[in-house]
Every structure is written in C-alpha cells, then in structure tokens.
C-alpha cells in the first residue's frame, strides 16, 4: 500500500528523493539483515551489560529497543558504530563482520550510518549550517552541493530558518532536530536514534517520532530507536507515513485490518533479550516485568 502511494505522489518536494519501494521490496538484498548481532557479550568492570544478545534488523525496518535506564540500550548503538568492542560475539553491518575492524576500517563502515545522540551532541563551536555540513566537508564535497544538501536536510526537519544560529541559541527539541539533519546528510542506509526524545515535551517528542516514521516509510531507511518512553513506541509501531494527493506527508494509524511489518520491538532485560516481537504481542504479554514496564503496574 505504501509502495504505490509513495511512488505516485512525489511532488512533495523537488529535492526529496523517495526510494522505489516496489523495486526495493522485490530486491534479494532485503532478505539479508542490515544489522546483525550474534551472541554479543559485553561487561564493564564486573558488571555484565550484554549477555549473549542476538538480533537482526532488516532493510527498511525500525527496531525499537526498550529497557530500563542503564540496561545497555545505548551500548547496543555504540557497538553498532564500533565506538566500543564486544567482549565476545560478532556484529555484522550489511553482511560485513565489523567486530575486529580497526579504526580506519570502521570509518568506512560508519559512512553508511547516521547517529542521533540523546542530547544532540552538536559541535557547539560551529553554527547549525556547519554542523549539518560537517560530514560533507570532511568528504571534500563542493560548496554548492554542500549548501544544497544542508538546506534540503534542514527543510526535512523544518529548521531552515535556524541555519545561521549557534547550537547554544537552540531549544532542546531544535538541537535534536539539527542532530537528525546532521545524521541524515549523505543519505545513510542506517540511522541510529539514541533516546532522541528524552527530556522533550510531548509535541516535540511527537515531531521527532514523525521524522523517524518518514525515514522508515518514505526513504526505506533501517533504524534502531532506543527509548524507554511508551508514547514513542505507540507512535512508531502503530502509525505510518503516506503522501496524499496534494503531495503532503500524512500520518495514518495501522487500524484493525492492517498490521505493520516494518517495526519490531526488542526489550533488554538483565543483559539479555527479554522480549522480541510486535507491539501487539508486547501489549498482550502476561510477563510481570513487561506488564510493569508497559502499563506501569
């Protein structure tokens, strides 16, 4: 359903390119996971953070990672980026085993990924423009192309007006959105969200989730969304983005007849996978820990 609508309603903007979803869905590449953890273990000091974690993320899929604070959710993201190494187990990105990669090899792998940090992690000595342009400048892209791409990304997060501002002049929500724009520059195949809505008011948190939904449904981006907020889970696992006849992006709920297959939930519990599946299964679970986590009682 999303395939036809996305392809038939491109006039949203001249400079946003949508993936040919039909071709993408039929591609054999989609069978292979984009991210794969195989029995990954990690401990800091004597504290076990991850104890034999295995999961995979398919192309165009969003994996929501739930868990209590300090439960290793952000660590999973740092492992994917190669910022830390596991004690044992294997990590594969696009079929490539990156577990033993050195820093220069990891730099190449990281080109495929974008990362949205919890507090934005913007370079506070650089204005918004330079922050978003950072990756392109490092790649030596021509200034004209840099400016066009930066403006396109800032339009995507609805922050083109803030292009000349310094990070210190932005609100928390704006910083996260600039962080998203920076992560999306270069059209990465994978986007990693590390609690991007933490500490934000509900409307701004909703805006961030909508951006993640648009990336998933309209740009075929694989993503991992780390959170412990149930509102985020509800938005991401029950809503999808379509382009209406006027070229506007519209968010619709999956309803009773439609079940989205491109969003799954992974719950970490005591260093292990405590739950993996769809939101409906999570909400129906009788496990006391999951019930406490989901319903708060």
């Amino acid at each position, binding site marked *: 359903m999303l395939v036809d609508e996305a392809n038939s309603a491109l006039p949203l903007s001249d400079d946003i390119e949508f993936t040919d979803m039909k071709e993408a869905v039929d591609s054999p590449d989609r069978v292979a996971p984009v991210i794969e953890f195989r029995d990954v273990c990690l401990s800091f*000091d004597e504290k076990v953070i991850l104890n034999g974690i295995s999961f995979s993320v398919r192309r165009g899929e969003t994996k929501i990672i739930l868990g209590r604070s300090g439960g290793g959710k952000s660590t999973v993201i740092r492992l994917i980026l*190669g910022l830390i190494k596991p004690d044992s187990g294997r990590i594969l990105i696009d079929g490539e085993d990156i577990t033993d990669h050195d820093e220069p090899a990891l730099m*190449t792998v990281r080109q495929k990924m974008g990362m949205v940090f919890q507090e934005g992690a913007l370079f506070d000595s650089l204005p918004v423009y330079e922050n978003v342009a950072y990756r392109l400048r*490092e790649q030596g892209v021509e200034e004209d192309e840099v400016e066009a791409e930066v403006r396109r990304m800032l339009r995507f997060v609805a922050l083109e007006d803030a292009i000349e501002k310094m990070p210190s002049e932005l609100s928390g929500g704006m910083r996260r959105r600039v962080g998203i724009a920076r992560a999306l520059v270069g059209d990465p195949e994978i986007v990693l969200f590390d609690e991007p809505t933490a500490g934000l008011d509900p409307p701004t948190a909703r805006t961030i989730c909508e951006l993640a939904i648009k990336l998933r449904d309209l740009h075929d981006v694989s993503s991992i969304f780390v959170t412990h907020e149930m509102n985020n889970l509800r938005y991401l696992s029950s809503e999808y983005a379509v382009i209406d006849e006027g070229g506007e992006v519209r968010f619709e709920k999956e309803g009773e007849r439609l079940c989205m297959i491109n969003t799954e939930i992974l719950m970490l519990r005591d260093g292990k996978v405590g739950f993996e599946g769809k939101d409906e299964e999570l909400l129906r679970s009788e496990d006391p820990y999951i019930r406490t986590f989901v319903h708060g009682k």
Partner: protein
Amino acid sequence: MAAICLPFCAGRCNLTLFFKEALPTRFLMNPLLRFIAELQDVSLLLWRSIVSLRHGPRYFAETLRQMDMIGVGSLPIVLLTGFFTGGVLVLQTYPTLEYYSLQNESGRSVATSLIRELGPVLSALMVSGRIGSAIAAELGSMVVSQQIEAMRALGTDPIRKLVVPRITALIMMLPLLTVAADIFGLIGGGIVANYIYGQDIHVFSESVRNGISTKDIIAGMVKPIFFGFIIGLVACHKGLSTSGGTVGVGRSVTNSVVTASIWVIIFDFFLAKALQYLLDIGRI
C-alpha cells in the same frame, strides 16, 4: 575498565586487556599499574598521532587556527613574563656582581640565564597554564557532551582532527614565543640596569653580545620544541580521557597543567644535560 580507556581506542587500548581478571579495584588502587596504564595510553596516542601524519585528510586550516590561538594569543603573557623575569634577574644579580666588581657582566648573566633556561622553561610553563588547560578543557567538554563520539560516528578521526593540529601548533609556536620572551627579557634587564643601577646601556648590550653564542641560541630553540610536544601530548591525553561530567573536566584541566609543568621541569634537566654534551656548552 572503560573508565580509564581513551574514547578513541574502542576499549582495546590499555593494560586492562592484559589484567582483566584483576579489574578494576586492584588495578586502580595500584599506583604503579595506573602509571604504566597511563603511559601506555599516552604512547598509543603519540603513535596514532604519528601514523595519522602519513595519510590524509590533513587539517591545515585547523592547525593555522591553533597556531594563531597559541602564538598570537599567548604573546602578551609570554612577553610580560620575559620582560619582568629579565628585569628581576638584573635587579637581584647586579648588587652581587658589583660586590665582585663584575657589574659590567650583568648582561652576560641575564642573557645566559634567559636564553638557556628561564626563557624556554617560563614560556613553557605559561603556555602550559594558558593553552594546556584550554586544550584539556575543550577536549574534555567535547568528550562529556558526546561530541567526540559524534565526530567518530560522522567518520572523522579525532586524533587527526583535534590532536595533531594542536601538537603541531604547539611545536611550531613555542620556540617563537620563547625567542620573543628572551628578547623582552633582555630589554627588561637593560632597562633595570640603566634606570635603577645607572649602567650605560651600551655596556649592558655589549655584555649580552659577549655572553651568548650560536650554541646557546640553538639550545634555547631546541628545548621549546620538546616542551611544546610534551604540553600538547599531555593536554590532549588528559582531555580525551575525561570522565565524570563537568567535575571530570575540571579534574582533567588541573591534571593537565600540573602534569605538563612537572614533565617540562624534569625534561629541562635532562635536555640541559644532553645539550651540554652535544653542543659542548655550559662548561667553564
């Protein structure tokens, strides 16, 4: 384990790998092991800085920016330090020299002291306080606000981008600052000799000319190269190994200044001895 691991080495760079069973308390409680671990981290940082010079990208603009900040920015305090150090040297030594009827050699004494020792060491200490602390604070803040991780996530090597330009700038600018401090020290000494003790300025300048040789100048230029390297390496290491939020940043700044200053003074002794031997200077 992770707490003492530099952010750029992905958890595989320090002694904790080899002493994994003994971690963490025994490891951290043992000052000798802690020192060895830190030495290893600094060596690794140095090695990676050297290796990164072989390939691009190279950040010339950043290096120039750092040279401006370190060189031009530090000029006023270094000139002031040099001027008053030269002045006080003459103020203190002139009466003693006069006692032995050697007051005409006051220029020689101040020139020798300044160019061989005080100029390089005091400039290094001032730069360590001003620039070493700034580097440690900047990098430390970037670590605690995840900017270093963001940089790595965006495919940039922080050593190439942040460490190499700072160390290069310090190595290039500290000798120039030292020369400036030496010149202002001699001017300060000359003014004190002339205005306070009434010595003819030509006698003072003639004494300075007789007192210093090319070897002295070479020795005075070699030392700041090493000192700049030490200050840069220590400051970058302390900054990048920051942990514990804003309190940790403060701790890194203090440690950076104290450690760099101590190493400058220790290295000064060994460098002086080595230069004495190599250049055949400082012997009567």
